[in-house]
């Protein structure tokens, strides 16, 4: 039945659409159609946060969030460079997505129930797990959170981190002295100058401060563990299931490719693999792409042009930061990154 409808629809548009040659055009939802007509993915990103989205010395966008924009462009348009980046503030990001100014929001956005439901959004699988972390001066002799009773803690005011710490210390029945400072530069400066014993913030930011803002990085240590849940994912408008599916499965491509050992370097050789999973993924067998309204090579291009999840992670969080993967490891290595079956 579905096939019949599809072929009828193909006939219907064949005369008008210039690109009707692609068999899946008939299935195009509004967003996919708009993206293909425009020839560009409009992607909302952070205005400047190292590791997630930042313009480098040549003004080129780089970062983990940016790489997921590129992956979608590679899958849908065949070229990872066909992205128009829209830097968005944290207040402005949701209206920008709702009003259609961007096709996807890849901007350090924590997935929450309210955002998913009341804001009318849908979120792909988390692309990065983070949460509150603590950095301490080694001289105070603390190695775990339980040692921090009575400590002065530097934290952003009004942030989720501030609430998380209050809850964490209350649950452990420990006292602490919050030192709240709005600007990130001054907050880090206050910690470095000794106004507080502990620097509490999003864990992904801590290694950078240790290595690049401390006068002697060896004087500081990051307490192991993450003390709140901040799963970051790509958001899209609710109501366009096909586009949502594309975002979701492009993300899973990066996870699965890493798990199956496919990287941007060996993807061409991997096409000859005997593994049926790899054959399906790279479009050697089956028609996974067509089910999403894409061509056969969609996933191949994601891996070839952008890379698997491990490559994406390393290119953004590797040197000079060398952030440990932690829970962002594959599930097979004790992390949370779990690619769904692609069949």
């Amino acid at each position, binding site marked *: 039945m579905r096939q019949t409808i599809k072929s009828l629809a193909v006939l219907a548009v064949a005369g008008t659409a210039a690109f009707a040659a692609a068999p899946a055009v008939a299935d195009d939802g509004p967003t996919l159609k708009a993206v293909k007509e425009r020839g560009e993915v409009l992607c909302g990103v952070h205005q400047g946060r190292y590791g997630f989205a930042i*313009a480098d*010395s040549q*003004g080129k*966008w780089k970062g983990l969030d940016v790489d997921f924009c590129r992956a979608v462009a590679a899958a849908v348009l065949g070229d990872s460079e066909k992205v128009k980046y829209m830097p968005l503030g944290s207040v402005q990001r949701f209206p920008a997505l709702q009003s259609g*100014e961007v096709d996807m929001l890849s901007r350090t956005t924590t997935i929450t129930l309210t955002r998913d439901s009341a804001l009318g959004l849908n979120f792909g699988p988390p692309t990065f797990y983070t949460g509150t972390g603590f950095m301490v001066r080694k001289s105070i002799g603390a190695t775990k959170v339980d040692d921090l009773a009575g400590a002065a803690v530097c934290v952003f005011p009004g942030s989720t981190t501030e609430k998380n710490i209050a809850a964490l210390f209350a649950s452990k029945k420990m006292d602490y002295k919050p030192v709240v400072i709005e600007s990130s530069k001054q907050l880090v400066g206050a910690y470095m100058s000794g106004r507080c014993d502990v620097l509490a913030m999003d864990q992904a930011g801590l290694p950078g401060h240790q290595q*690049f*803002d401390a006068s002697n990085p060896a004087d500081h240590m990051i307490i192991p563990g993450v003390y709140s849940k901040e799963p970051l994912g790509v958001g899209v408008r609710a109501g366009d299931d096909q586009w949502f599916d594309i975002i979701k499965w492009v993300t899973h491509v990066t996870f699965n490719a890493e798990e199956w050992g496919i990287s941007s370097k060996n993807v061409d050789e991997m096409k000859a693999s005997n593994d049926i999973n790899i054959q399906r993924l790279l479009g050697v067998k089956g028609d996974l792409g067509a089910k999403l309204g894409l061509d056969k090579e969609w996933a191949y291009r994601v891996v070839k042009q952008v890379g698997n999840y491990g490559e994406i992670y390393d290119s953004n969080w590797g040197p000079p930061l060398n952030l440990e993967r932690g829970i962002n490891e594959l599930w097979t290595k004790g992390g949370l990154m779990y690619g769904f079956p692609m069949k």
Partner: protein
Amino acid sequence: MNDQATPEVVAGGSKRTAPPPIERIPVLRWVRENLVSTPFNAAVTAICLIGLIYFLPGFIEWALFDAVFVTSDHKVCRAAEGACWAVVGEKHRPMFFGVYPYEEHWRLIIAVLIYISAIVITMMPKFWSYRILVPAWIFTLVSTLTLMWGGFLGLAEVDTSQWGGLPLTMILFSGTLVIGFPLAILLALGRQSNMPAVKAVCVVFIESLRGVPLITILFVAVNVFPLFLPQGLEFDKLLRVVVGMAIFFACYEAEVIRGGLQAISKGQYEAAEALGLGYWHIMIRIILPQALRICLPGIVNHIIAAFKNTSFVLIIGLFDILTATTAVMQDPEWRRFTLEAYLCVGLVYFMFCYALSKYSQLVERWLSEGKRF
């Protein structure tokens, strides 16, 4: 203090007797007249001197002697005691040009040069004629926009969302003036109008928009306005922002101009009417030239404010020179040296604003000398 009966008294301070020989040396005379003329002045001078002696050597040491001027290695800067001006060399491209494609930056440099030349020409009275300025500005607008947009003549197309840095600041500023200033004059005239409907519209427009912060207007222009438009109809985001800023500027400037209009004596209006001139003739030929002359300092004041207001686009994701610098300085290897980068951007703002204010003083002097253009 107001005793200016004879020039000798002013020049020689309070003493009327023959000036002591020391005052024949111009420098010492200047010091005496300007720095230590009264006990209060002397005290202020002393405090400033102590402050300078206390802070200046440290600053010079930091900014000059211990500073690193050229290096592409952040470790060299970290090892140095002083300022790291090398950060400007390392990051100047994204600071000044934002995320505009790197290979195309030469287009921006040419565009900025053309634009600045056009402004310099416009500021010189000897070029003040329609025959020169109108073609010059048409050429400037067409050539700079062609250079920035591209899309033909073999130039790659660059979308407005990628425009950034200094050119963006200049576009926002000139767009605000070009749209806002005529609108301000119309609003000011409308508010003085005898027609109740026109007057009411202008009053409501001015008062309601003056009552909200610029940030609100920008937010509405960027995020709320598109929600009202039918699907498929889109205005460029940059255009929406410029129009929003221009309207905001116009509301304030209209009130300044109204002040000038009210300062014109009624006799001027009546005399013009007695000559049988129409409304627009009276305004353009007689009233506005005098009114604008009166309120010139206020007008320039708001123009300078408008230049600095361009940095508000931070909240709507446009990379003007300040936002671009903030974003670029997130780089962990260089972010210790954010202060140096900001000082550089501050210098750019200062040069523009100082030039504007100096120029307006010059124009005021021309006007007070009764110079005709």
